[in-house]
């Protein structure tokens, strides 16, 4: 097992799947000659040629829809958004066409497509470039949504997404692209969708998070343990839809206290659904109300001074956790 970056892990996943299945192509803005806006697809054009790694014009609606049409015909396109924020100009193609064609055809058609790219704030690029639409996508039956937080997950889950016969939205994070960790090099290394991961065991409280919030939560868990003698379990959701409800309920029943952390905005965010599920299925196991930390409820701010406050940071999460004990 080699130590590689999250970015290289994505590149391996894409390369292995393109090699494995002739129906897989990667398309998006700057993915080929430019080597990827975030260098995720570096070297792939040289390896696989312009037929498999395809530069598109800045036409998210057309190339997303093109990919949906090609997927209806049996191809397995991977569409890269430079930022998930740009999916909004292709909303119809993703949320109407990719998500609903199977249903409206009474199951005659399926759409094996992957939409992927970074979906995060925290890089001082202002409101238009900092959206985290995992809650929108998860609100749409017909779509699957994953938010891998580690290099190994990035590889294993992207590969699972490409092999999946339904549309999968893969939400990555530019801040994680340089993160290094051990990643299996087995070309059949797959992490199934819908399987949460306990990153740290604990007994006094659980922090449930997804995406980059997982790493901030881990830091908080260590602080709580070292400075406050609280044993914290950290559950990484990894996949939003399907959702590992069993893992959520299990950890709540074990620790009886739960803090939900996400970088998404609060109103109808992913954690709103999770809070509902916990009170519905594990109410009697709760020793304290469910607490929640999310992005501050304003359009994403440009200024570092503001955005650092906006995204759940160590101290804000810690303060909320202290309310639980």
């Amino acid at each position: 097992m080699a130590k590689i970056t999250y970015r290289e892990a994505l590149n391996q996943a894409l390369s292995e799947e393109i090699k494995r299945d002739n129906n897989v192509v990667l398309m998006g803005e700057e993915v080929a000659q430019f080597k990827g806006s975030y260098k995720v697809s570096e070297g792939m054009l040289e390896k696989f040629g312009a037929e498999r790694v395809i530069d598109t014009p800045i036409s998210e609606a057309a190339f997303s829809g093109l990919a949906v049409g090609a997927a209806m015909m049996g191809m397995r396109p991977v569409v890269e958004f430079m930022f998930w924020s740009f999916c909004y100009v292709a909303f119809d193609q993703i949320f109407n066409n990719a998500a609903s064609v199977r249903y409206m055809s009474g199951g005659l058609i399926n759409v094996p497509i992957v939409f992927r790219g970074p979906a995060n704030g925290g890089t001082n690029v202002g409101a238009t470039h900092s959206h985290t639409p995992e809650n929108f996508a998860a609100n749409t039956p017909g779509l699957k949504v994953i938010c891998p937080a580690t290099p190994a997950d990035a590889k294993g889950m992207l590969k699972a997404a490409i092999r999946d016969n339904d549309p999968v939205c893969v939400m990555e994070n530019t801040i994680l692209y340089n993160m290094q960790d051990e990643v299996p090099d087995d070309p059949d290394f797959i992490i199934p969708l819908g399987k949460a991961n306990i990153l740290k065991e604990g007994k006094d409280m659980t922090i449930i998070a997804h995406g980059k919030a997982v790493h901030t939560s881990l830091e908080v868990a260590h602080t709580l343990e070292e400075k406050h003698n609280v044993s914290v379990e950290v559950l990484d959701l990894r996949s939003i839809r399907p959702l590992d409800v069993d893992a959520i309920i299990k950890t709540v029943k074990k620790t009886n206290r739960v803090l939900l952390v996400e970088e998404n905005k609060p109103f109808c965010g992913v954690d709103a659904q999770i809070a509902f599920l916990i009170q519905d299925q594990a109410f009697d196991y709760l020793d304290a109300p469910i607490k929640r930390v999310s992005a501050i409820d304003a359009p994403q701010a440009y200024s570092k001074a503001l955005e650092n406050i906006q995204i759940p940071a160590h101290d804000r999460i810690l303060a909320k956790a202290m309310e639980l004990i």
Partner: protein
Amino acid sequence: MEGLHHDTILEPSAKDSAKIKKESNEEEKGETHSDQADSMDFSTSTANQSLSAEDKVDLYEKMVRIRRFEERSLRSYQQGHIGGFLHLYIGQEAVAVGSVSMLGEDDHVITAYRDHGHALAVGMDFDECMAELYGKKTGCSKGKGGSMHFFAPDKNYWGGHGIVGGQTPLGLGIAFALKYNKKKGSCLCFMGDGATNQGPFYESLNLASLWNLPVVYIIENNGYSMGTAESRHSAGDPLARRGEAFDIDWSVSNGHDIYEVRQTISDALTSAHEKCRPSVLEIVTYRYRGHSVADPDQTYRSKEEIEEYKTNKDPLNLFREKLIKEGNISEDQIKTIDNRAKGDAEASAEFADASPYPDPSELMDDIYWETDNPGEKTSEGTMFFETPS
């Protein structure tokens, strides 16, 4: 004829240049595009010269069947059996039937919500279509798509799409997949005149030309986008000329004449098959009914205008008269065809009426391939968060 939307479009003197297809062979020009307005005879053009009497009668019957089916569906709508929208194709039949009749094994079709005509033209049957309108389990989409969302992938028919212009990138993708798989095919992507004002259409035209994709955009110009006449919704004339900005061959033709439709499509298919080039075809036609059948129909056009089309431009009448003149159809045949279509339409309404509604549990089928195929499931976790009890 004052005020009829295509008068201006088909005015020969004003529009000569508009009808000349870019890059088309010199000798093809006169033959394939209606330089001489809608009276030009296409019966012996290359696309039509080898049609047998039987073929022609068959084309006629297909148009009649679409009309009778839709007339029957209108009655069912008025009786309350069909809900929601019912966008009828009546008046436009020659476009779908003529176009589809030119297609080969690797040619595909996608369209908007006014989709019954295309569905029947590709060979979907009355029963499954009528049952879909009734929301029944036996419908082509098991009652989950409705009037706007008919599909038959086994017949290369990819819907039936309710968002205006939303199918234009999908048609591009179908063409992309054909080219990727080295098939000598094409995708006919039908759309309305109103749909030409959707942004994704232009993104698609750019890609189609840039990547040499065999997609044929067919603008069925029936003069109106709901209640907004072309002159009130579109700058620049004719609409098909918008393809020129992308170096795409384009033309305007008369959709009341099935022979001309066939020739127009034939040229575009040659270009798609032989050169992998897209086309934009504006086919002028007219709808007789309201936008959806419950919509008011007198606020934006006159009764006289509709009557004028019914009397002088009806694609079924025009073709029938031609067939009679050519000696290719008898009065008996005409009657038999009509009766058969009416009978089948009636039977399909009875079939739909007698069919069961989908079971509540079917609400959760056909959402994900994976949940429909539990034996081949690869994911874990919960997929649905509220299901019927």
